[in-house]
């Protein structure tokens, strides 16, 4: 099952809080632009998870698009 970003559901725990990550709103920023995104994060301490495919995929695309503007 995929979530909004097309990621597979993840089974990841926040080690400090000992709870599973759930989807939540995160604000990302680059070169003066901010944009909201849904990512897995710890509902308690806010630690987030960005999977490799996202970092190397869409995030690189956003970086390139904003750099080239």
């Amino acid at each position, binding site marked *: 099952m995929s979530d909004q970003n097309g990621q597979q559901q*993840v*089974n*990841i*725990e*926040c*080690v*400090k809080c000992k709870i599973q*990550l759930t989807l939540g*709103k*995160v*604000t*990302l*920023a*680059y070169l003066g632009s*901010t944009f909201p995104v849904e990512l897995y994060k710890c509902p308690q*301490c*806010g*630690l*987030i*998870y*960005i999977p*490799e495919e996202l*970092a*190397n995929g869409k*995030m*690189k695309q*956003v*970086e*390139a698009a904003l*750099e*080239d*503007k």
Partner: protein
Amino acid sequence: MDQMDQKLLRQREAKCIQENPPGCTARCPVHVDVKGIVEAVGKKEYAKGFALFTRMVPFPGIISRICDQPCQQACKRAEIDETIFIRGLEQICVDQVQNTHNVASPPTKNKTAAIVGAGLSGLTAAFELGRKGYKVEVFEASDRLGGLIWDYQESRLPRQWIQKDFSVLAKLPVEIHYNTKITSLDHLIDQFDAVYVGTGFQQNWDREFSFTRNAEGELELDLLTLATEREKVFAGGGIRRFSKQYSPISSLADGKMAAISIDRLFQNASLSANREHEGPFTTSLYTNTDGIQPEPMVQAADPVNGYTEEEAAREADRCLLCECLECVKVCEYLAHYRSYPKRYVREIYNNLSIVMGIHRANKMINSCSLCGLCAEVCPGNLDMGEICLEARRTMVDKGKMPLSTHDFALRDMRFSNSELCALDKNQPGFTASQYVFFPGCQLSASSPNTVKQAYVYLTEKLAGGVGLMLGCCGAPAIWAGQEALFQETMRTLETSWHSLGEPQIIAACPACCKIIADNLPELPVKSVWEVMDQIGLPDRAEALSGLSPLAIHDSCTARYKADVQNSVRNLAGKLGCQVEELPLNRDNTTCCSYGGLMFHANREVAEKVIRRRVSESESDYLTYCIMCRDNFAGQGKRTHHLLDLIFAKDNDRKAGQKGPGYSQRQENRERLKNSLLQDVWGETVEERPLDAAIIVPEQVRPVLEERMILDDDIRKVIAYAESSGNKLKDMDSDRYIAYHQIASVTYWVEYFPENDTFIVQNAYSHRITITD
């Protein structure tokens, strides 16, 4: 783009002659597109060739038979064997199409022109003016059209072509008055809005129309417009000639030129503006004719009827299709974008003028190695590197340089100049230095032992104290367009030099040599090769006659440095090496793709560049820049570095090995400094405590290299995660996942703890920041 920029753009663009016409087209009075026709004939596309021909020539049947071919004087092929028989190729197009060309009847305009004489020039003028809708009346003394063309035999000019060609005039508002000889122009000038005199070569010229002739017998004419001294009256064709030499194409060209003048007269426009390109000229196009095998002109088996299709195709094949592209031939970067510098330069200027638009030329600007080979081979010395570097500086200035392109290289440079790696010291026992060895940041990174040995050797051989400077000369900063950063680096280097007593710099890297010489001219700098050529090689250097001939690759930064190029060869010779020259050597050498940070900016082009260079010879290569060595070895080419050959053992193995990875390079620099401080200066050095102990399994290493993620950065992430407790665990794989922002990059690491260390499984990064 302001006026200054425009002017500079034009100047630079003009150096690239690729768009200049080939000699034949330039020399043709009407600029027939010969190349286009030849290509069409080669593909048997005769209709296309015919269309190209008739675009410039209104009477194709006639001209393809009797043209006097001034183009042949300019044909490049003549330098090799024989000119191309251009007229024959035009002829086959005409013969295959077997038609006059289509001319639409135009809407008529309210101006009239009189044409005296129905020779080629007069009828061409009639055609061109009629096509624009002006009413034309031609006055011909005889009972037929064409004038001197009738002097040609039927076999040379079949009469059907005369009839066919001239039949186009029937579709136009052109009226012919046969058997009407004009003796005075006065009443024509009254009745018509313009008059063209094309009565041909006159033996007794003093009796016609009271035109003035000069001492040489030339008609007094404005050569740009063919206007005579009398208002509204133009003249051309044979009447201008002072010998009976008939040039059909020149007459035709005159008719065109006069028609343009008359058209402008009718529109009250300037007769002479922007007409410099009319008429024949000599082209500035350069075409390389090296290596073309001589072949004679193809002779038609049946000269009367011209080429067969097969003969024409063979002759078309002989055509060089002149163009320059000298730089594109030698540079993979220029070839990659499938065009040529004139267009690239325009694109770069457009890119800069689109302030904050989408910059598609960014990558192209950043991909040039700045090596200067194009400037060397270009007949106009156009230097793409100069233009790209300037563009990079402008982009940095305006905040338009994409940070990610050069970030890693610049951080690496900073590391080389940081406390951990940088060093400037006098030789032990000296308070000032006569010389200072400056190996450069990459040699220290890749062959630290060789650096050590070379330094020791220099201290043994040179008197007066040989100091040592470890650091980076700032090349990455220049190449990235970061002028301010580069100036900073230069200042530091200069300060070190002063503090050591202003010694003679001995540089092991040709790039450092060039950059110091160009930017700090007061600092005396020499390459280590010239020095070693003078002081001699260490006794322990093995004779290397056992090595098969080595093909020498000159570093691009050694271009125009004959002293360096020669010293290197001398040294190789002294080592018993047989040296082989590569096709592009010495001043014509290519870059290995490190220059201009091409490797970082455009991996695809860099790989092409390396691949091409390493395929130029089967032999092992010899270089004198460690980046060249590492880049070639990276694609599997056995490559030796000259200093390694002189000082190191085990060169056989080393030549076949890839260079160290990014993390190893930084570690080597740091260790080199510490090892030198200890062994040479006797200082105790404490090992820098690492943030965390990590193990990178063999299969993970390539991933880190590819993504340019350093071990030190991984350590920082893990150390942060472990001390803060901020980490994640993947419950399926049991891996820990941690992230941390370092400088402008956020690094992610997946790892397992094991005893006192951490085993790295994966790492990735992004520049987008997390704000929440």
